[in-house]
C-alpha cells in the first residue's frame, strides 16, 4: 500500500504548512522536531541535486533537502517575508531538514484527501490537504527520512 493510500485513511490534525518554491507542503506537526533558520550548509560532492548538503543543528549533522527539487522544480528565488527556514522532520530512521522559503505555522487541517489516480505524487507524500484554498501535499516523514537517508548512505 502506498503512502497516499495510507494517508487517505488517517484523520486530520496539526500540520506545519510550508512553502518550497511554488509548492505548498504540509508536514504533520508530530514529526517536526523543530524549525530553525537556514544556516551554513556544506555541499557534498557528487550528491543529487535535491540534496543541498549537510548542516549541524544542536550538534546533530543533518542532510538538507530541497523539497522543491525533489518535486522536480528548478529552484528559483521566491523569498518570503522571513528568512528561509529549515524544517527538521524526524522519522524512525533519522531526521532530515527540509528547506522552506517560508513556514506558515502549525495549522489544523480537516482531513487528508487521497490523491487522484493520475496525480499520486512522489513516494514521500501521502495525499493533499486544503489550506486557505490552496492544495498542500502532505509529507510522509517516515518515507521522506527513509528515502533521503538511504540515498545519502548509498553515496554517489
Amino acid at each position, binding site marked *: 500500500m502506498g503512502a497516499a493510500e495510507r494517508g487517505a485513511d488517517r484523520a486530520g490534525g496539526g500540520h*506545519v504548512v510550508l512553502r518550497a518554491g511554488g509548492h505548498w507542503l504540509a508536514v504533520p*506537526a*508530530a514529526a517536526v522536531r523543530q*524549525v530553525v533558520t537556514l544556516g551554513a550548509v556544506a555541499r557534498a560532492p557528487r550528491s543529487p541535486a535535491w540534496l543541498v548538503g549537510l548542516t549541524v543543528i544542536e550538534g546533530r549533522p543533518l542532510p538538507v533537502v530541497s523539497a522543491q527539487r525533489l518535486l522536480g522544480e528548478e529552484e528559483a528565488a521566491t523569498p518570503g*517575508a*522571513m*528568512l528561509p527556514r529549515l524544517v527538521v522532520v524526524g522519522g524512525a530512521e533519522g531526521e532530515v531538514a527540509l528547506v522552506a522559503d517560508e*513556514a506558515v505555522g*502549525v495549522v489544523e487541517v480537516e482531513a487528508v484527501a487521497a490523491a487522484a489516480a493520475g496525480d499520486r505524487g512522489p513516494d514521500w507524500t501521502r495525499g493533499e490537504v486544503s489550506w486557505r484554498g490552496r492544495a498542500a501535499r502532505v509529507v510522509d516523514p517516515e518515507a521522506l527520512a527513509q528515502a533521503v537517508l538511504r540515498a545519502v548512505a548509498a553515496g554517489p
Partner: protein
Amino acid sequence: MTLTRLGLQTRVIAAIAVPIACIATFFAVFVPARQEAVADAALEQRAFSWLTTLADHAGPVVGQGPSDLADLRRAFAAAVQGDPELIYLTVIGPSGEVALRRTSGPPVPEADSLRRLVPTRTALATPDHLHVAVPIRAPGDGALVGTLVGGFSRAFILAERRASARLALVVSLVIMAGGVALAWLLSASLARPLRETSRQLSATSRALLAAARAREAAAAREAAAVEETRRVMDVLLSAAQRIADSAGTVLEHAESTLAGAEEVADRIGELNRYAERVAELLASIMQVADRTDLLALNAALEGSKAGEAGKGFTLVAKEMRRLSEHVVESVDGIRALMKEVRASSVEAVRASHDGKASSAETTRSARDIATVTQQQRAATEQVSRSMDEMKELLGQAMTDIKATSRSADGLARLAAELSALITPSPRDAAVVRLGRRNSRRPPAPERPGDDARAAGG
C-alpha cells in the same frame, strides 16, 4: 576816372612818361633860359670890353671940338659895321647931352637911366636889347668927362633860345615817345605773367575755398557722426552698467544658490546617513522579528505536541507570530518607504549635485559676465574718451578750416585785386570794392557753440 581804375600798363606808362615829360619840360625851359643867361653874360662881357676900348679912345677927345670927334666917329662907324649886334653908340657929355651918336638900322633910344654920367660901368637889359654904359675919363687925372652908352641887339640870343627850346622839345618828345614805348613793352612783359599768375592764383584760391568748404562740410558730418557715436557709447555704457549690476546680482544669487545647494547636499548626506542607520535598525528589528517568529513557530509546534495542555501555549505563540508578522509587515512597509526615501534621496543628491554644478556654472558665468562687462565698460569709456578727443580735434579742425576759408577768401580777393590792377574791368572793380568793404567791416563775433552746432549738424 580815379587812379585806381587805371591798369598796370597805364600806370607803368604814366610812371615813366610823367618823369620824362617833367624832365623834358625842365630841359625845354631851363636849358634855353640858361643858354640865354650865358649868352647875355657873354654879350655883356663883350659889350663892356668893346665899350671900354672905345671909351679909352674917346677919353682924350671928348670935350674937344667936332673936328676932334671925327676920328672917334669913324671908329664908331667901323665898330657899328663890324659888330652886327651893336645897334648904336652914344657919347653922353658932362652935362648929359648927346655928344656923338652912331646907329645902324632903325633908331633905338637910350635908356633914360643911362643918359647921364655914370662913374662905373652899368648894364641894363630889356627884352630886345642890352644897354651898356661905360664912364669916359680924361687921360691924366682920370676925371669923368662923359659916358659911352652902347646898345646891343639880343635878337640872336632870343633866336638861339627859341631854337634851343624847339630842339629840347623835339628831343624830349622823342625821349618821351621812346619811354612810353619802352614802358608799354615793359608793362606788357610784366602784365602778361602777372595776369597769368593772377588767373592761376584766382583759380587756386577758388579751388582752395571749395576744398575748404567741402572739408568743412565733411568735418561737420564727421562731427555729427562722432556725436552720434558718443551718444551710442553713452547708451552702451549705461547698458553695460545695468548689465554689470544685474551680473553682480546674478553672481550674488548664484553664490547663494551654490551655498544653498551645498547645504542641501550636506543635509541629504546626513539624511542618507540617518536612512542607513534606520536600515540597520530595521535589519535588527527584522532579525528580532524573525527570531520571534521562529520562537513562536517552535512554541506553537511544541504546544501542538503537548495536546490539550499546550493549547494556551499555542495561542500565545500564535499571537506572538501574529505580532512578529505585523512587525515584519511594518518593517517591510518601512523598508518600502525607506526605499522610496533612498530613491528620492539619490534623486535629491543627483539633483543637488546637478544644481550645485549648475550654480557653480552660473557663478562662473556670472563672474565671466561681470569681467566681460567690466572690460566692455572700460572699452566703452575708452571709446567715449576717444570720441571726446576726436570731437575736440574736429572742433579745432573746424576752426582751422574756417581760418583756411577766410584765407582762401582773402586770397581770392587779392587775386581779384591783382587782376583789377593789371586789367581793370567793372566786375573786378565791383569785387574789389566789395572785398574792401568786407575787409573794413569788423568781423562778426563768433557766438559760443557755433562750432558745436555746426559739428552736431
